């Protein structure tokens, strides 16, 4: 369970504080795969970063007892001068994974990078990068996976593979997803949070949330 209690987030600007989230009270159950919906600038990514613990609420608290992944976005947290393997090794180290060989080989295979895995991440195309960062996240066992537009890139074969991988993980994990791809959301999620008018509402039904979102 991830619980938001009275969470507000604002960014100081020269026009005064600009609120992205205001007095948010929300509970994300463990057995729900949640899509975050909202227009550009509504605070979708901010919400994801707050859940991921790499940004902090200006007021209020976020309480959780789960292992939450880093927000998976394109090439986030990757050092471009290091090779794919070295980046995986680094992430293994900070997560206390001692069996880094296995994870490295898993990522190499899953990402379909072949020899490129031994080349600097700088040299990857954006498609390769998205495959790679997705594969890296699948190499670790989290309780909740945070995904920021990560599945919208890549070829169709790989997309299918990603969705299968997520379905496998789902037995003991859930996902929180930011995406503009409604078909994907319908397939992958069974709940949604709609960010609109400075509020965030939790919907048990994805269709209802999408309907509300599209009529904004």
């Amino acid at each position, binding site marked *: 369970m991830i619980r938001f209690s009275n969470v507000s987030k604002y960014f100081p600007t020269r026009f005064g504080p600009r609120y992205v989230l205001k007095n948010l009270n929300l509970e994300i159950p463990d057995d729900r795969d949640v899509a975050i919906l909202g227009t550009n600038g509504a605070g979708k990514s901010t919400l994801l970063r707050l859940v991921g613990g*790499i940004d902090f609420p200006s007021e209020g608290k976020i309480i959780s007892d789960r292992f939450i992944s*880093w927000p998976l976005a394109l090439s986030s*947290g990757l*050092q471009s001068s290091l090779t794919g393997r070295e980046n995986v090794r*680094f992430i293994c180290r*900070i997560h*206390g994974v001692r069996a880094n060989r296995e994870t490295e080989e898993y990522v190499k295979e899953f990402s379909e990078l072949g020899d490129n895995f031994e080349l600097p991440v700088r040299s990857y195309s954006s498609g390769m990068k998205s495959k790679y960062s997705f594969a890296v996240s699948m190499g670790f066992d989290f309780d909740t996976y945070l995904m920021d537009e990560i599945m919208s890139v890549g070829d169709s074969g790989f997309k299918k593979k990603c969705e299968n991988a997520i379905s496998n993980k789902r037995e003991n994990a859930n996902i929180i997803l930011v995406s503009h791809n409604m078909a994907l959301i319908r397939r992958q999620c069974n709940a949604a949070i709609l960010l609109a008018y400075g509020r965030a509402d939790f919907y048990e039904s994805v269709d209802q949330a999408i309907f509300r979102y599209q009529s904004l």
Partner: protein
Amino acid sequence: MKARSAFSIQRDVVFAIFVREMITRFSTYTLGNIWLVLEPLLMMILFMLIFGARGRGAFGFVEAPVFIFAAFLPFRILWTATMRQCASARGSAKGLLEYRQVRLFDVFMARTFIEGGLFIVVGIILGLGMMWLDYEPWPNNLLLTLSYCVILWLMAASFGMLAGMIGSVAREVEKLVSMLTMPLMFMSAVFFPMSIVPKQYWVYLTWNPILHAMELIREAWFGNYISPVADFNYLISAMVVLLAFAMSAYRLTWRRIVAK
């Protein structure tokens, strides 16, 4: 995923950043990571050649290259490099902070440890080289020398952290700090001992805690040098105050720094 204690998380993270920093710092250079050691090594050799060429026993109590060794090595690596690395940690840590267990403080720690390790490695290489050339480079009182070095090192890390944090509010501080390095070398009695400075000028220099560190290191390194000004209590108080300042400033502001 296994639950870890806060300590083991921090240990894992600092180690991971330590390795990553070592790999990436010179990765674009032809010689790669060799530069990590080569850079300070070449600089030291250059200083020794320049000053050593003026003749031996420049200050009466020790041979010139050994004097340079005992002064420039701690100052360049433990003070200047540690301070600069900490002050610039914020900018290069951007990508690392995408992981929730990585905090800015871990980057500070990893960078400080790297410079400490470099100090030891470069010191040993240079010392062995000088032994080969028939000098007597090793400290007279090794433990005491190293403890003074540790104080200087922690002081540099604290100052660097403070500079880095103030720099996140006002970038001008970065410029000021890099301008400070050169005059600080003159003011810290790096390439001369305080015993050759006339007494009436002491008062202008002794406020500087780095000078005390340099003089104390010299005393412990050379058995026959007694500094006229060195004050251990002043040095340790300055270090503790700076460290406390840096830690509390970090505690108060790290969320704001990360959010930028």
